[in-house]
């Protein structure tokens, strides 16, 4: 009985919360069309790299590998994509290079933590430091994208008031982020890959006894997650702006970590969390000079809320149980 009640309640929440938010957004829209639209668009613009970064973390942690090197992965990708595009005069080559850079950093993390069983935290720290070093050492000013990334208006959908402009009048990477989140959510909870991924992150020896190659799967997942971090970095230097500057990730990789936790390691909730913080940011700049709240409080909101979530809801919101622990065959239980 209790199970049924919980089930219904959970589904009510899952459907009801976005619905309420949507209603609120449209109420706002009818009050002030331009401000509502621009703020929502701004929120999503801000949220895209966070979604991609946080999803990188989700895949890694769901598989049992902690990734605190997302910041470095993004930075390297931003660097590689921008300068490749500038050098080859090809956007496609740039995007490919950015994604490849993310994947390469992912492969590095996978190799050090899964294969070499190095401490995952140290590996992440190393990635961040190396990324800062490489990108500033090889940085040369004066490079320029051949053309800007295209803005796509998705047919039909982009005509929807509010939502259309927010989500469907964007560049390819933002659209990719919009698309990949539900796809990943589905994959994580409704496919063979997802079931196995969750199993190796929660209880690797159970997966091992069921005949799943835990370490190979972790390796592949961390490498694949690099695609998302790569896309996030590429978004920063090629889509959100058309330039690279040193340290331009500006802590977004760490913010992504917070969002991953706040989103309870679930892709769709990650999107919601990223949008929430994006909207808080948009609201803060919109209210600048109108209401006198210190801007800084808005910036540190995600971190404080994440700490609060961890402290208060420690029992309910929890990380995959086996994350951070290398899997050694035959020692598991």
């Amino acid at each position, binding site marked *: 009985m209790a*199970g049924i009640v919980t089930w219904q309640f959970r589904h009510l929440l899952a459907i009801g919360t976005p619905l309420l938010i949507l209603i609120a957004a449209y109420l706002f829209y009818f009050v002030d069309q331009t401000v509502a639209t621009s703020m929502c668009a701004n929120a999503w613009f801000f949220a895209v790299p966070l979604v991609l970064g946080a999803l990188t973390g989700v895949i890694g942690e769901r598989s049992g590998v902690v990734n605190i090197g997302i910041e470095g992965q993004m930075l390297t990708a931003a660097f590689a994509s921008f300068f490749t595009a500038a050098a080859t005069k090809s956007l496609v080559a740039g995007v490919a290079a950015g994604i490849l850079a993310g994947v390469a950093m992912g492969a590095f993390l996978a190799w050090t933590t899964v294969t070499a069983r190095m401490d995952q935290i140290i590996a992440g720290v190393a990635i961040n430091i190396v990324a800062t070093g490489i990108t500033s050492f090889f940085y040369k000013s004066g490079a320029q994208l051949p053309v800007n990334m295209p803005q796509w208006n998705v047919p039909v959908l982009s005509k929807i008031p509010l939502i259309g402009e927010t989500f469907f009048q964007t560049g390819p990477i933002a659209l990719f982020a919009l698309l990949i989140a539900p796809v990943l959510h589905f994959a994580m909870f409704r496919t*063979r890959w997802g079931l*196995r991924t*969750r199993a190796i992150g929660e*209880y690797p020896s*159970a*997966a091992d*006894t*069921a005949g799943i190659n835990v370490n190979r799967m972790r390796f592949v997942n961390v490498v694949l997650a690099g695609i998302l971090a790569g896309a996030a970095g590429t978004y920063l230097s090629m889509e959100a702006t058309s330039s690279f500057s040193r340290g331009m990730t500006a802590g977004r990789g760490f913010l992504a970590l917070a969002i991953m936790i706040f989103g309870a390691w679930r892709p769709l909730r990650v999107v919601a969390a990223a949008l929430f913080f994006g909207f808080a940011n948009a609201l803060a700049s919109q209210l600048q000079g109108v209401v006198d709240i210190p801007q800084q409080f808005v910036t540190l909101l995600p971190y404080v809320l994440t700490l609060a979530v961890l402290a208060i809801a420690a029992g309910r919101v929890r990380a995959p149980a086996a994350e951070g622990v290398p899997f050694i065959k035959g020692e598991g239980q």
Partner: protein
Amino acid sequence: MTQAESRPEAARGRPPSTEERVLELQGLSKSYGAVHANSDITLHIGRGEIVALLGENGAGKSTLVKQIFGLTRPDAGRIVIKGDSTPIKDPKDAIRRGIGMVHQHFQLVPVMTVAENLILGHEPVRGGIRLDLAAARMMVRELSEKHGLAVDPDARIEDLPVGAQQRVEILKALSHRVDLLILDEPTAVLTPQETDELLGVLSELAAAGTAIVFITHKLREVLAVADRVYVLRRGRVVGTVPTDETDAARLATMMVGHDVILRVDKKPSTPGKAVLSVRDLVVRDNRRLTAVDGFSIEVRAGEIVGIAGVEGNGQRELVEAIAGMRSPLSGTVRLGDRDITRFNAADTNAAGVGHIPEDRERHGIVASYSIADNLVLNCFDSEPYSRHWIRNISAIREHAIALRAEFDIRSASIDATAGSLSGGNKQKVVVAREMAARPRLLVAAQPTRGVDIGAIELIHRRIVEARDAGAAVLLVSAELDEVLSLADRVAVIHAGKVVAELPGDLVDRAEIGRLMAGERPGVPPTDHRSDGES
């Protein structure tokens, strides 16, 4: 399902069809470092046969079945499955070849549902992508009906009671075609009713032709369901016997062994006042089941009281409760006039209790510490080993030098790490530390497990000396010989209770065997183990 259908007796007397060997082990050996977990093990099992592997903890049972399931590789020897001696690569290979395993530590993902756990590794999909959970649920229901093991396919594992988790674990093993089912201590966590249910299922499976390897140290279960028993001690098969030709007492004796009878020279004891008084102690184990159930005992100064019993009858929890490492549910523990029931480990020690822990590697020593530091682990915070938070290195060293000589700890120096020592010398370090402060009460749990003869003699001698010096000693050991040769008084524990107290020198081994098996004169064998909640 009703109890009547699953009476273990119903299964007895099946003709074992041993002509077709499902599994054969030939000279299997496996070592971890210097420890020989399995030495030259040879055994076989036929279609429809239930074979029990009986042995104390650490006898090598789990290591053995891990090799059969492909979780580790043997160092030497062959595993032949249905005539095929190709080495087993990994669990996947084992599953493919018709082996199913129910693990001692459930191999279930706690946050996933029953159905999800059951399909892990061989998931049904629809349209090539989407997990077919409906099919999975169906499969669970079918399996569950077929084997009479009721589970809800949509329940999350972590929400289920242990018994239900066990059912899932069994169903998981049976979700493939299984010719050989291995169960590693499946009943350790079950209530008597659940145990009976399980034994019934096993009998039915065997009747349908499945070969079953069943690991346990509970004699009743062996007798109830198995056709044959292999008894393991210290990594070796010490005997195999059809269950028809044996009884609980004989099995108990085989298990605890009679290879070396160590004579300990000791004078008759002259007990003084009571030092330890345990009254109606109730302690739960890690799974929140009642392990110690109304235990009472008194140990007087100058006397060794031995606790004899088959492992898993509450000994560990009893010791931990007395030593302050586990909080009892009810009852009292008094040391002389002081109530130490709620003391933590440090306070208990300070009150004058020495504790030789059962798990030496885990609790007893810090492997990377020097011998000297290990020797003050229980008293580093008190004078003369420290003063005002500053450690007195010279006092610590003097202490170590003295104890090293006194307990004959064989090492290069007192600065050698404890991890570099042999098992016997490690144990000497632990014993030396716990006895150094001349405790009023010494609680010794398995004080000579995995230790060479020389060390055993020394440790026994020291324990007797401590007694003669007026200490009260509570000795818990799985080695019956150890208990019999050391104890002035023997208390037999079964299902968390004292079932009998006997004077140490007037013990008939067969009698003790029966008591350990849960029998009482005139009382038919029943399992009194209660589970507190059910």
